[in-house]
């Protein structure tokens, strides 16, 4: 009995001790990687350290970046922001149906502080801004060190380049916010509160009030100037920032702050090394490849990231995806007929949208299941493709051209040389060099878009430039900021009987209508007590203000 007893007790304790595994050994295994594991990986393979820098660019168009578990079809970073900004504007729209995730933009109910669309649009630039600031913190501890030439001189070239790119990204982020939360210089709003600034000097994110429009633009220009001074044209991929990109961004900032000559100069410098897409280039659905000669900066979308996802540009603004909202349910992005009608028939860009008979010469280069030409427009494939309707866009192609894609891996342009030309034209025109401006514009359009182009006498030259921007940059996210920058009314329709807009989205708003300003999301006002939100205005109703005109679509 005693032997049994001893054996039993011993075995009990033996089991007990062997089971005393160290609780400290429990680590993540693949489901995300912890900070400690990152440190370990970097020490084992030093090149892994670069992943933070790459991540700052990857997030820009990453599907479901804001809320990975929700997989919202309208959650894809700066690309989604571009589509939203244009869908709020006068020229781009989606049908009014239950499929339209951008209907809050069409209705302009995107001013509701609890809605997801405006939250994603507010959150995305600040998320990238944080990554840029974190990147800066690897090298500098406060902003003042940037002005310490001796200190900067002591850094290696990789460090300086990283700082410069991060500063340029920071500026890009503010440029993606400022036009939407306050009116512009042109509207006399430069001293009005805009958005909170977050720099390395920001002490309390929970009490960070809105900086004025001018303060925000001063920071943008300061960051970009540093970047321009320390960058050159070289970079590993066009997804990153080089001197051209920084110059282009500063040109945009100068345009917004009405520094016309500076804008023209920067825009001209930014063009170096890039040439506009030719008539032939854009006579087929295009704007999907970052390696195109006219792209200065873009998003390099990989198949593994986009593969079949609905949170992508081909799913929404494209018309050539077999795995897409737009095609699958016929919620195609289309152009406002008022603008379309103003495009001369000789302009290649007229073909970027099918006409009222569903014709576009661009479709001749498309092969959808053996169907080509205008038959592509009419093609119906159950659950895959609905027929196009009048004014459906065919501007944006897919990498599998001439065939449709089911991978949705189109790249996205953030900056094209054509935009720089138009900035240069506007800067020159408004700084007293209109003749030169007219010449450059005429040269550009006749060479690259419409050989029989003549500057329209029906509208002012300023409005002509805006018209060119609206046509050339349609869908790329400039519509709303241009309208605000020029202090123009929102004019989407003239008469309900003539518009191709859904009635619910057919309304106009006068310039400086308080409803034009975005509201800070509830999530921000709940946590940043420095914010005083925008107020005023009323959600527009069907068919209001039909008398308004904007000078372009009159």
């Amino acid at each position: 009995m005693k032997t049994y007893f001893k054996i039993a007790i011993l075995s009990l304790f033996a089991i007990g001790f062997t089971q005393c595994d160290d609780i400290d050994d429990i680590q993540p295994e693949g489901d995300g990687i912890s900070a400690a594991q990152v440190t370990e990986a970097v020490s084992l393979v030093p090149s892994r350290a670069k992943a933070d820098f790459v991540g700052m660019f990857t997030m820009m168009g990453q599907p479901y970046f804001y809320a990975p578990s929700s997989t919202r079809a309208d959650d894809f970073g700066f690309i989604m922001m571009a589509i939203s900004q244009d869908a709020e504007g006068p020229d781009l729209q989606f049908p009014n149906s239950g499929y339209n995730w951008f209907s809050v933009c069409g209705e302009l109910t995107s001013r509701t502080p609890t809605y997801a669309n405006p939250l994603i649009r507010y959150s995305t630039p600040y998320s990238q801004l944080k990554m840029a600031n974190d990147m800066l913190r690897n090298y500098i501890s406060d902003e003042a060190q940037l002005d310490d030439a001796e200190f900067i001189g002591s850094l290696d070239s990789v460090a300086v380049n990283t700082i410069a790119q991060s500063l340029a990204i920071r500026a890009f982020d503010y440029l993606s916010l400022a036009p939407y939360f306050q009116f512009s210089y042109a509207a006399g709003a430069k001293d009005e509160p805009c958005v909170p600034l977050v720099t390395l000097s920001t002490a309390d994110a929970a009490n960070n009030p809105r900086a004025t429009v001018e303060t925000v633009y001063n920071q943008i220009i300061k960051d970009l100037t540093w970047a321009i001074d320390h960058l050159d044209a070289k970079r590993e991929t066009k997804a990153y920032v080089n001197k051209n990109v920084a110059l282009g961004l500063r040109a945009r900032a100068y345009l917004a702050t009405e520094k016309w000559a500076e804008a023209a100069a920067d825009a001209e410098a930014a063009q170096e090394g890039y040439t506009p897409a030719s008539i032939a280039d854009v006579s087929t659905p295009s704007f999907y490849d970052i390696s195109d000669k006219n792209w200065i900066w873009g998003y390099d979308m990989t198949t593994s990231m986009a593969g079949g996802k609905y949170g992508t540009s081909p799913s929404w603004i494209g018309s050539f995806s077999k795995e897409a909202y737009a095609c699958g349910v016929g919620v195609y992005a289309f152009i406002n007929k008022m603008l379309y009608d103003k495009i001369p028939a000789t302009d290649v860009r007229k073909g970027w949208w099918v006409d009222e008979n569903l014709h576009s010469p661009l479709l001749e280069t498309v092969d959808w299941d053996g169907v080509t030409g205008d038959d592509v427009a009419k093609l119906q494939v159950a659950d895959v493709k609905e027929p196009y309707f009048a004014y459906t866009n065919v501007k944006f192609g897919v990498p599998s051209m001439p065939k449709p894609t089911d991978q949705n891996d189109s790249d996205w342009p953030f900056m094209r040389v054509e935009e720089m030309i138009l900035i240069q034209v506007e800067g020159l025109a408004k700084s007293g060099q209109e003749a030169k401006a007219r010449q450059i514009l005429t040269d550009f359009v006749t060479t690259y878009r419409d050989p029989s182009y003549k500057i329209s006498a029906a509208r002012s030259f300023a409005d002509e430039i805006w018209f060119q921007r609206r046509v050339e940059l349609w869908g790329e996210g400039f519509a709303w900021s241009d309208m605000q920058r020029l202090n123009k009314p929102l004019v989407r329709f003239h008469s309900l009987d003539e518009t191709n807009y859904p009635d619910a989205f057919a309304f106009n708003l006068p310039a400086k209508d308080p409803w034009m300003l975005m509201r800070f999301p509830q999530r921000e006002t709940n946590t940043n007590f420095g914010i005083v939100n925008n107020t005023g205005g009323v959600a527009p109703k069907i068919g209001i203000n039909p008398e308004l005109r904007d000078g372009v679509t009159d």
Partner: protein
Amino acid sequence: MKFLINRKLVLTQNKKRMSKRLWIFLTCLFVSASMAFAQKTVTGVVIDKSTGEPVIGATVRVDGTSLGAPTDVNGRFTIANVPETAKMLKVTYVGMNDVEVAVKQNVRIVMEPTTQNIDEIMVVAYGTQKKSSFTGSAAELKAEDIERHISTSVTGSLTATTAGVQTTSSNGDPASESHAILVRGIGSMYASNTPLIVLDGMPYDGSISSINPQDVETMTVLKDAAASAIYGARGANGVILINTKRGRMQDAEIKFDARWGSNSRAVPQYDVIDDPAQYYETAYKQLFNDYAYNGYTTAEAYARANARLLDQNNGGLGYLVYTLPEGENLIGTNFKLNPNATLGYSDGEYYYTPDDWYKETIHNSFRQEYNLSISSANDRLNYYASVGYLDHNGIVDQSAYKRYTGRANVDYQVEPWIKFGVQLNYTHADFEQPDYTTSSWASSGNLFYHVNNVAPIYPLYVRNADGSIAHDSNGLVKYDSNQTNQKRPNTVGNPVRDNQYDRSQNYRDMITGNWSLILTPIKDLTLTARIGINSDNRRRNQLYSTFGNASSVDGAADATNVRQFSVNNQYLANYASDFGTDGTHNFDFLLGYEQYKYKYQYTYAYNTHLYDPYIGEVDNAHGPGDDKSVSSYTNNYMIEGIFGRAQYDYKEKYFVSGSIRSDASSHFHKDHRWGTFYSFGVAWNLAKESFMEDYKWIDFLKLKASYGEQGNDDLASADYPYFPYAFMYDISYDAENNAYSKTLAQIGNDELTWEKNRNFNIGIDFGLWKGRLSGSLEFFTRSTSDMLYFLNQPVSSGFGSKQKPINVGSVRNLGIELQLNGTPIKKKDFIWDVNFNLTHYKNTIRSLHPSVAENGIKGSYYIRRVGGSLYEAYVYKYAGVYTKDNYPEGSTYDPANDGRALYYTQVTEKVKDAEGNVVKDAEGNDVTKEVTKKTLNFSDATQYDDGDILPKLQGGIGMDFKVYDFDFSFQCGWQLGGRFYDATYQSLMHTSDQSVGNAWHKDALKAWSPENTGSDIPRLESDYSVSQGAVDRFYASSDYFSLSNITLGYTLPKAFSTRFGISNLRVYVAGENMFVLSARKGLDPRFSFGLGGYTAGTGYASGNYSAMRTVTAGISIAF
């Protein structure tokens, strides 16, 4: 094999006595061995004292031997070969007190019915305890309470039966039927509120539906700290102890139970417009109003409404299902259907007529269940073995759950001081699930959402021009998925089609094992070592059919494998003894170490292009590399703890107990990993006091109080729940640029530590009039501090949607519980039992993080502020419709606004004196005041704190009748005084173009109109700004009354059944979840606690698998 007639299955277990018996057994072992010479035959009769009738089926055993016999139909027994040395006979029968009498011939033994609650033994943490000495608060359900429920999961029987336990049934899916259980209110904001399940003494992490309810002997809910603090970690939300059955009688008892029945939808559809004409008319009226009230002429309004009605790209319905004379409109200027219109329309290629999606999809289905068990016990070996089969089908096609269970419980007394026990359970489940999740709410892929919300004008099927349903070349039915010449405005594909053609096959194997070694090396000391494992392997194969939604990729398949494995080690030392004369001082010490490890492993593969369209495996999927998707990862979790407990009582009058436990959790950083938890309880058994002797009608009266603290480490809602202390990152790789990319996935906090629950409980337990009335009344506070919480970061700080886990703030639940069990009538052939319970609690947030303490945390539909509840509504307030008697203050009445919705708004105004001048204060500033006004403009409306929505009272009432050989029982549940955000109703009262094509509630017909000016429902008009807002008018009362269970049974008289060798035969019909009466037809307030908005919380209800009603008939036989 010879089946002896035996007594009914015994339902309670007496572990404490077992050890005493063991010693008796050991002493007798030697005695009987040495003196087994002289023998005799003993006979006698057993009589029920209360009735004078013979007791049939009582077990008579000769103490100290393995001899025994049951009583026959006349109460008589005969035991042969009784050794002369045998002294005592022991008689047991369920519901009667055990009797011991000296061995003699023709003995007449009188048994007394058990008085309830006296010295009943209950299952408690790490053992059992006399109910009288228990200082904590617990509720116990026994096998008979559980067996009566026709439920897949054992926790279903908690519904409405137990005070302080709140169940919600968010899901009727037969494959994932589960009940969210709350013990004494919501204690956590973000951490789990789920109680810890302890199966046969071991923490259980498997699926609750993998435990066959028929195998369960007792289920005990530990509610307060004294009861559950010893579980320290994870005991904070209460503990549910489930013990499975053991053998109880000498000879094998075989039990067989079979049930056949029908499942149906328990909650009806909302009262929706089901007449297509009425639906078109309503849609037309809304469109018309959009123009008529917006400055357009009546003629223009008619014209625009006609132009849009069928234009799916312009906010219209997209479908015409009426045939109209050439050039005529569907709806006339009187807003009525064109009298010349006839239902059904053909465009020459297709014929269009609406289908009743609800009737085509929702149907009754079959349920069957079979259980067989065998059990027996002798002095050394005790076993229980069972097999079960359940075939449980859903209310839609491709929804089914088949479960096979097998259990073996064996305890073996190796030596007098060594006992070995094994409990093994194997469960295999095959199931199919339709496509729905509440998070896919409003998706046109969600079968339930769509069927509940589709307008009555849309066809389900494609029809040929002649009206017949179209089939494809394979003979498959063609479901309408926008492939005809008409387009729907809001439905991608067709969820009914996908449910028919897609396949979701799930396989689950689960092994639960529990091995224990119990040593008694010296008297009163028990050492226990226990190892429990739970292995759960799941495989899901999903086929996305090329004939359905995966046609673009020519079919797709995914395979998911989840392997969960946990092992729990437990080492206990228990010393229980007494000293002083007759057990004046009784004490019991427990020391223990416990360690729990859990591993979760996930593998997933997906690809497209299925060669064989019906094989849902990835090797049948030959899609290009870009289509392939694979994933795998492992997560680990571990806790360990040491604990001790001491109990003492003086003459079973005064009881004191205390426990302490220290736990470490891998959820926390190693510097903040350990937490120490404790409890303390006292009780006073008044009935044992001499001054109570005169009150003979009091059987039992106990006052008790306890206080203690428990921990919670389960941040249930995190994306990376395993390591909340760590910053986590997502990595991706770009092959084109050969670059890894890293983005933040989770904010970590290495300061994070245990959430603590402090429970105070004071109560009285009583038994009166020999068990005719018993019950308890308890008062409790449950306070959570260091609450695990995800703090939103300023969006501008760049963390996006990511939240920082912190310990913050505190919440308190203050409550009272009453539980009563009574027997108003107790006669020989008529027994009437009543049970009643009632709970009230109030939830209050006591403190919050400094950053949000002042303003509270505001969401689109909730506000969390100090002094408020965790379930505090935050809503826009509806101020009625605009009329000449009700319009915004200070404005001019405009008849064009008649019938529009008004909302309240808070406005700050300057105070003016009688002359109209602004009043200034002493410093010369304008004096202002806040006034409440009405506004037509929703964007100016103010969101108000609208108070706690939790019910004030909830409870249950049940009755049991035994009339001759019939038994009848029912159990009802109810709650009162709360509110439920009826977002389904809100969506059925839609005003937005984005809801076009959705069903309308019939209340939409009662909207304000010039002909119906008395209505409080705003006129039909598109109002996008308000369409998703949380508005108080959509809060409905959450009061409900439900019949959760009803049973009628007939037991064949023993006198009759015993002739066939059957000890018990009962036939019955039972209904589960029979109905719920609520404030509105279709509303099921049991879906959640009621807080919600249009797109969150209760808003998910319409995308959910509706609750099922089950009606079965069964037969139960015991040999």
